[in-house]
């Protein structure tokens, strides 16, 4: 299957999953017994955060691959993933804030989960900013890769902040040791999974599109060795005079 076809199929699947998410999340799933309608924000807030983690993991893998291979294609993959991750983290923070207002009663609180998430966002905004400082694409890629690898330390910190420390934010429901079965009503879990699928497919679609744009912008170096004879000079003693 060609690249364009993969992209189109992903786009269609993402649209279908999004439609399923809307139906399941807004119509089929019941409002939460305690939180009421506001709880429906979970179906977008949680997938946004998960796919952001996934994107940052991709940044880590691509950054390491760049440092090993020194191939700018890996750097472009890392950049596209980081852009997605920054957007989704911002989205997760915004949605979480909107969810927190009716449920906790505040937009924001100095809770470890919230603070570590904002730090995560800042670090990857910095990651994107480090690119474009130098003229040489490889210098930019190398600096970004260092930040991309070191910055990933934040991701486990964000995820486990609710387990390690006592926080206002609730601990994981689905990714908890006992599994999701006893903590969430099955139809809600289905809606949540639909959200995860829709966000993952949508992110994959955006990722491929972005990668295409980046690859088009990054023309291969305008020199080719072997096209014509390379001028060659060897300097030995007493050659000149």
């Amino acid at each position, binding site marked *: 299957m060609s690249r364009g076809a993969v992209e189109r199929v992903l786009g269609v699947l993402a649209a279908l999953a999004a439609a399923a998410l809307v139906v399941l999340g807004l119509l089929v799933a019941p409002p939460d017994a305690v939180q009421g309608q506001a709880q429906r924000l979970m179906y977008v807030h949680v997938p946004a955060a998960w796919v952001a983690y996934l994107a940052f993991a991709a940044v880590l893998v691509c950054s390491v691959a760049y440092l090993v291979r020194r191939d700018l294609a890996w750097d472009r993959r890392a950049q596209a993933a980081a852009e997605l991750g920054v957007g989704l983290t911002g989205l997760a923070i915004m949605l979480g804030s909107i969810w927190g207002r009716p*449920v906790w009663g505040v937009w924001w609180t100095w809770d470890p989960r919230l603070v570590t998430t904002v730090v995560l966002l800042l670090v990857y905004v910095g990651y994107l900013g480090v690119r474009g400082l130098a003229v040489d694409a490889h210098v930019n890629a190398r600096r970004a890769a260092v930040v991309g690898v070191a910055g990933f330390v934040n991701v486990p910190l964000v995820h486990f902040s609710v387990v390690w420390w006592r926080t*206002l934010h609730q601990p994981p429901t689905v990714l908890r040791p006992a599994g999701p079965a006893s903590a969430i009503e099955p139809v809600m879990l289905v809606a949540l999974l639909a959200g995860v699928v829709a966000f993952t497919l949508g992110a994959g679609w955006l990722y491929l599109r972005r990668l295409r744009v980046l690859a088009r912008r990054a023309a291969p170096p305008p020199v080719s060795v072997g096209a014509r004879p390379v001028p060659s000079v060897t300097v030995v003693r007493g050659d000149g005079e």
Partner: protein
Amino acid sequence: MTRTARPRTRLVVVGLVSVAALGVLAASGLQDSLVYYRTPSEVAARPRSTTQRVRLGGLVQRGSVREDAGSVRFVLTDGAAEVVVLHRGDPPGVFQEGQGALVEGTFDGRRLFRSDLLVVRHSNEYQGADGETYRPPDAAVGAATP
């Protein structure tokens, strides 16, 4: 010129040092210091200052909520100790008995806690309003002790 260590050596060193650092952290007992809120038992065990601001978390005891105009009074418990909270202002919409809550404020005298910020702490468990189709076990305990 001294040779620079190979990338893999460097990664291994970073890994080992990180493990050592995590060991230092695990041995330090930082867990007890880095808390977002205290429980009623913890504040019962310590001497109370009437000026220091405290963030207190627990369950709202069933049958303890009394709402007046512009304020609400309830008992916050963690099963072992209780604190009477007087909160100025209207509680958030989802505030109810048996749920987790966080309050910020200062102690006034022996048992009364004057709060000016009330936040509902919701559990990681979700169910439809029709509780008969689905009843998660130990819902209340999960909210108080993460």
